[in-house]
């Protein structure tokens, strides 16, 4: 068991990082360019963004492997560099000096019928291939994120358990707040989804993206009651807003940190941010967690 798995087992609080894509855009990543491509073309920028999070107090950072499955990479003509890209991305995250490196595993971007023409077998192959590449790069854990279909999350989890059996696998779904509760866009309800993932062997479960911290706090309460596993919660920094032809998120770092400290106090072990959050958010949260003495 690696040190991160041991930490999960002891149910200690860990502060994750925040958004990556928006920080790369600030460094010049063009709209429509794959963030993963910078792992190969602009490694120093990627390493520096990780380093900024480490400096802000993140215990763990996510390697830039979110879209590094062969199905998604094929859209950018990068599928044949899948192994190299996953290995390099984990190395860059490691070189930032982060205590723990989480390899990010995002969705294929396809949907199953009737919504799309995706196919379970090719998804499984793509996640097995990414899992093998990541296992060889030896991160501390794998984090399946931003899944909007429970079925795809379960396929990814199964594929990673097979291809990287020595690594803990965390799984976060993306929920929307509806009148009757929290659901994925495909209609998967919160509690049932997290229990399915727990039964399928996830080492931690939770939610990221779409919701801001206030809604995530409500979600976290329900999630905590639903499963007895480490929980991971990463909200967006409010809602996206336009300013001078660019896109910004509206929430102030302090407001985010205040709510996320409350999320942690509900017994959520892994807290961090998603779209729109940057090192200021993580720094603000770090100082709240430390002043509450939650840091282990």
């Amino acid at each position, binding site marked *: 068991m690696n040190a991160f798995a041991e930490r999960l087992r002891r149910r200690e609080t860990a502060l994750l990082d925040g958004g990556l894509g*928006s920080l790369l855009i600030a460094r010049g990543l063009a709209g429509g360019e794959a963030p993963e491509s910078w792992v190969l073309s602009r490694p120093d920028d990627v390493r520096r963004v990780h380093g900024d999070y480490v400096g802000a107090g993140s215990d763990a950072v996510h390697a830039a492997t979110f879209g590094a499955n062969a199905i998604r990479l094929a859209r950018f003509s990068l599928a044949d560099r899948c192994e190299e890209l996953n290995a390099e991305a984990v190395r860059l995250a490691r070189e930032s000096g982060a205590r723990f490196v989480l390899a990010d595993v995002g969705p294929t971007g396809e949907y199953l019928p009737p919504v799309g023409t995706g196919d379970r077998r090719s998804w499984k192959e793509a996640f097995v291939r990414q899992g093998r590449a990541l296992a060889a790069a030896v991160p501390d854990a794998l984090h399946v994120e931003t899944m909007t279909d429970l079925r795809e999350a379960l396929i990814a989890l199964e594929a990673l358990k097979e291809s990287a059996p020595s690594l803990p696998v965390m799984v976060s779904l993306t929920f929307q707040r509806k009148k009757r509760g929290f659901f994925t866009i495909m209609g998967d309800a919160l509690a049932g989804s997290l229990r399915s993932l727990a039964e399928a062997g996830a080492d931690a479960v939770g939610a990221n993206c779409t919701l801001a911290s206030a809604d995530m706090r409500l979600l976290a309460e329900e999630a905590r009651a639903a499963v007895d596993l480490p929980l991971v919660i990463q909200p967006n920094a409010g809602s996206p807003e336009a300013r001078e032809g660019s896109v910004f998120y509206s929430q102030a770092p302090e407001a985010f940190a205040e709510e996320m400290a409350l999320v942690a106090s509900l017994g959520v072990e892994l807290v961090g941010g998603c779209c729109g959050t940057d090192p200021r958010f993580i720094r603000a949260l770090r100082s709240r967690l430390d002043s509450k003495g939650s840091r282990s």
Partner: protein
Amino acid sequence: MYAEMKQAVVLGDAVRARQLAEGVVDGEGDVVAAIEQGFAAGIRRVGDLWEEGEYFLPELVQGAEAMKAAMAVLQPALRKRLGGKASKGRVVIGTVQGDLHDIGKTLVATLLSAGGFEVDDLGSDVSVDRFLARAKENGADIIAASALLTTTMPVQKAIADGIPSLGLAPRPRLLVGGAPTTAAWAAQIGAAWAENALRAVAVAESLVGASRRA
């Protein structure tokens, strides 16, 4: 019979929707009423159920597919009846470059087509140049651009910035949408905005009206 048409869309039954549409055409029934009071009423109900959190993406997509199946049968009859003037306007639609999400865009395309527009769907990951070139080629009234990521929203602005270079003012008008987009964003880049697929049809109608008046 209209209630049955509505129900076929609400239940996402494309086979039944097609049969009912064929019944209208074969029996020389009222095509416009079948759309307005039958199939379109069904898709509006699907939209309401989505808003209420009763329906999710699979139900929404199946409802749109049923609508599409009916429209494939009804559209030729509609065109004939209106003497070739069935089109409310030409739309070039796509999801912007770098963005692979095309469910919302495809729904909008289906509904615009059902609403009487001629729709040219370029798919997803469409470059600014491709949007503009196709719009010029088609003499499009509207370019409809979807972005589902905050990282790809700026491509909508690039399209807006490129439209004057076509030299076809006041057309084509730009219509933007997608989960992270807002009315404020659209206003800032000089585009129209639709909050969801159903609203997109009404907004497109108002845009065509506006550019015809201009």
